[in-house]
């Protein structure tokens, strides 16, 4: 105890004014996106799935281009061949190489999923943003329209569109876009309305920032995470819808292939050649799982407050 008393007075120096030090930000400055990216990187499953999706996407372009078989060349001498070194996934009822057809079909399915998701994004974001930013009467009318559209069972309407329009990839994409954008519009509107009432927007307004600048610098960047997450969920849902349409026979027509067409063909040949169903089934399940996990990962990383 006494030792403490013996400390000489000179050793004590005034702490001084070190507010600068107190306010020093030790952590590097990261943008919200970089933060999200760090969180996403830690999610091993999501990273692995994202890599798998990339590999699948590349393979679906490369394999049909480099293989000596095509997705439409028939070889009746060699139909329903079991998987072998020559035909890794066997051949179908028309002797077409299933390996190439599955990769080609995967590519078409991915293309449809991506295109449909992007169209939904465009329409949905514009609709939602205009509705939220304009507010008032415009918003009221636009919301009434949405409320009417929400009641429509979309898959049924998509099937009817597919029946009425000439079959093809773009018909499917267009049909899916008729009601597909509604969810995106609602999410974007809700997010922007929420942002609009926050203090930093009010501060920007008080500082005299123009409306356009507020939209471009504050509202849009803060909405991107919601949009990206929604797109990640829209892609597998569009892939599912396409497969479903082709499976019940109103989607793509032969010899074009998508995963749905392949599953439909495989299902018809179930007794004779179960592998014709099983490989495309595995392909679509794998793709759906990967998108679902990446979507979840993105949501956890970029919107940590959002509930599952």
């Amino acid at each position, binding site marked *: 105890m006494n030792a403490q008393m013996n400390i000489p007075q000179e050793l004590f120096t005034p702490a001084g004014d070190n507010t600068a030090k107190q306010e020093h930000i030790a952590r590097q400055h990261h943008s919200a996106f970089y933060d999200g990216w760090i969180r996403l990187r830690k999610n091993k499953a999501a990273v692995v799935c994202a890599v798998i999706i990339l590999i699948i996407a590349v393979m679906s372009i490369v394999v049909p281009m480099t293989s000596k078989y095509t997705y439409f060349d028939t070889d009746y001498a060699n139909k329903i061949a079991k998987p072998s070194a020559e035909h890794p996934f066997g051949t179908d009822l028309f002797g077409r190489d299933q390996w190439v057809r599955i990769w080609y079909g995967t590519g078409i399915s991915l293309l449809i999923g991506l295109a449909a998701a992007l169209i939904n994004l465009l329409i949905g974001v514009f609709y939602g943003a205009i509705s939220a930013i304009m507010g008032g009467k415009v918003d009221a009318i636009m919301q009434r329209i949405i409320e009417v559209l929400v009641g429509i*069972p979309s898959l049924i309407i998509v099937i009817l569109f597919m029946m009425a329009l000439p079959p093809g990839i773009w018909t499917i994409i267009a049909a899916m876009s008729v009601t597909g954008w509604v969810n995106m519009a609602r999410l974007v509107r809700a997010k922007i309305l929420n942002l609009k009432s926050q203090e930093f927007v009010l501060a920007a307004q008080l500082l005299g920032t123009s409306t356009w600048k507020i939209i471009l610098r504050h509202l849009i960047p803060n909405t991107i995470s919601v949009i990206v997450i929604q797109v990640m969920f829209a892609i597998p849902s569009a892939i599912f819808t396409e*497969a*479903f349409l082709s*499976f019940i*026979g109103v989607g793509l027509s032969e010899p074009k292939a998508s995963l749905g067409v392949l599953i439909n063909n495989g*299902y018809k040949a179930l*007794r004779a050649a179960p592998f014709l169903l099983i490989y495309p089934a595995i392909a679509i399940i794998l793709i759906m799982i990967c*998108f*679902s996990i990446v979507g979840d990962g993105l949501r956890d990383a970029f919107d940590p407050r959002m509930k599952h």
Partner: protein
Amino acid sequence: MAKYIGKRLIYMAVTLFVVAALTFTLMKILPGSPFDEERFLRLEEAKQAEALARYGLDKPVPIQFARYIGNMLKGDFGISFYYTNIPVTKVIFSRIGPSALIGAQAILIGLAIGLSLGIIAACRHNGFIDNFTMVLAVLGISVPNFVAAALLQYYFGLKLGWLPIGFWKSWSCSVLPSVALCFSPLATCARFIRTETLDVLQQDYIVTARSKGMTQARMLIKHTLRNSIIPVITIMGPMVVNLLTGSLAVESIFSIPGIGGLFTESVKNNDYNVIMGLTMFYSLFYMVTILIVDVTYGLVDPRIHIAGEEAAE
């Protein structure tokens, strides 16, 4: 409350009208007529006109539409082109039974297994059952129902021969289709209740209950479940809708005489009247389900106030 329901009913009427107009237009664009093309063209002109007049197809399109809406309000959807001379409503009603059975079974299996798994998973957070449930949830959401149905049919019907497939005679025929349809509600439910329960378990009143020395089981039943199960009502709407669309493919895979199978059949047969009738039926069912879900949720959970559109969000 009455005002809220009234408002919703008005929206429903508008939506139904839009669906009817849309369907009607699409049916008019569709190539081909309900008549057998070759045989129809071989008829004399007078007979052709007579056949068209019989189905009201000789009038201008707007009048056809007005008449269609008028008849629809009277519950008359016309007669099926494929099942000659049988009214559409009769065709549809004769098919509801099997669909309702399969749908109800799928929902019950999904709810029972999904809720139990989800609750156990939340209580044993990060344990084996939790991981298992999460894997199952991802699978259930990712595997398309028609793929599941086709694979089930192959393994349990064709290969193992455990359950009948391809006909509809006894209850055992409904097992595989119900199982095929239950994956998605099961997964949605397990995932949802897990998150909800985890959320509730972190609330202060649970900590209080724990510190009072309440047993785990008692606390779960008295405090946790009551609060975590109520929000499950909100996902019932989307779940029922998923079942409806899922049944389209699953019923035709298992050759079940239900309305889902009827829809796919009618699409293939160009049976326009049945398609329109079913579209209206599906839309009505869909909207009524969502309305019931929203209203029930407001009634059951005192924390929710139905205030116009907030409740619909």
